[in-house]
């Protein structure tokens, strides 16, 4: 499917979605509350069939956080990016584990390093940091006077 066809398909079901096509892959901006219905359509619709979540990460923009999902279809060979803006003080979003099993580990990593809470995640534990760690190292305002040498 081309970007235009994906857009038409999604807009029919979710008219409030916005799109950006300045990058290599088309970006779809979703409200956190709408992520699951949109993701379910992307995953289960036969003509979309995004069966491969090849990257899940988070960006700290200092004013807000953005969750980024890179999706691809091994059947139709099309790729899109889904982005969702989160509140920085209380970042909360529904997990996508039940749609893409890969997300289980990636969401644990984002939880550990950015402090995003994923509701309904089956096993939301720390992945990399020690149990007594304070703060979220990949946030831009993270300070560690012991280990970090500031430039």
């Amino acid at each position: 499917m081309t970007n235009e066809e994906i857009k038409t398909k999604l807009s029919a079901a979710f008219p409030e979605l916005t799109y950006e096509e300045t990058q290599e892959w088309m970006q779809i901006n979703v409200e956190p509350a709408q992520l699951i219905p949109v993701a379910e359509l992307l995953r289960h619709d036969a003509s979309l069939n995004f069966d491969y979540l090849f990257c899940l990460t988070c960006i700290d923009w200092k004013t807000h956080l953005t969750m980024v999902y890179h999706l691809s279809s091994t059947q139709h060979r099309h790729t899109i990016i889904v982005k969702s803006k989160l509140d920085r003080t209380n970042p909360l979003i529904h997990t996508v584990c039940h749609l893409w099993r890969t997300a289980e580990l990636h969401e644990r990593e984002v939880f550990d390093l950015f402090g995003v809470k994923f509701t309904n995640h089956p096993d939301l534990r720390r992945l990399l940091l020690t149990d007594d760690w304070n703060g979220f190292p990949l946030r831009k305002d993270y300070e560690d006077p012991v280990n970090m040498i500031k430039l």
Partner: protein
Amino acid sequence: MTEKKKQPDPFPGKVHPAPGGGILVSTIDDVINWARSNSLWPLVFGTSCCAIEMMSTASAKYDWSRFGFEVARATPRQADVIIIAGTIVNKMAPVLKRLYDQMAEPKYVIAMGACATSGGPFFYNTYSVVKGADHVIPVDVYVAGCPPRPEALLHALITLQKKVKEGGKREKITIDKFWEPHTKS
């Protein structure tokens, strides 16, 4: 340009002339150091991209077996030298210390590349990286580079051999100290 051709290191000792041949005179320490230096077994240890260069140094093209390093060991108890090939993070530091402690004396350490030497590209603004493996274990030879080329690692290994032959003092040295043209007679 009539520089004298560099000779390979001779066997440590002197030939004492005697009727019908000669007697070789040496000290046990010199002979042991000579033997040790030519059969240093490295530990299979690599934490990032430097390990790729280390594997390349071990493989046929550069072939560190030419200098006596071919028997890479997967257990620290049989290894003589640990090449710290890669970034050491805070979580890895106790593991590295433990590996070093498990190695039998005499043991030697080579810090390969910028990360193992000083933290390198992760020196600033990083919460997780140890700024130099010498914060954890003593280092004998440092190699510059990110990652160093196989020639540089071979250079470091030969430098370590020279250090062992000269008595193996436990002091920190830079790689160029032992790379002077051999002036000894």
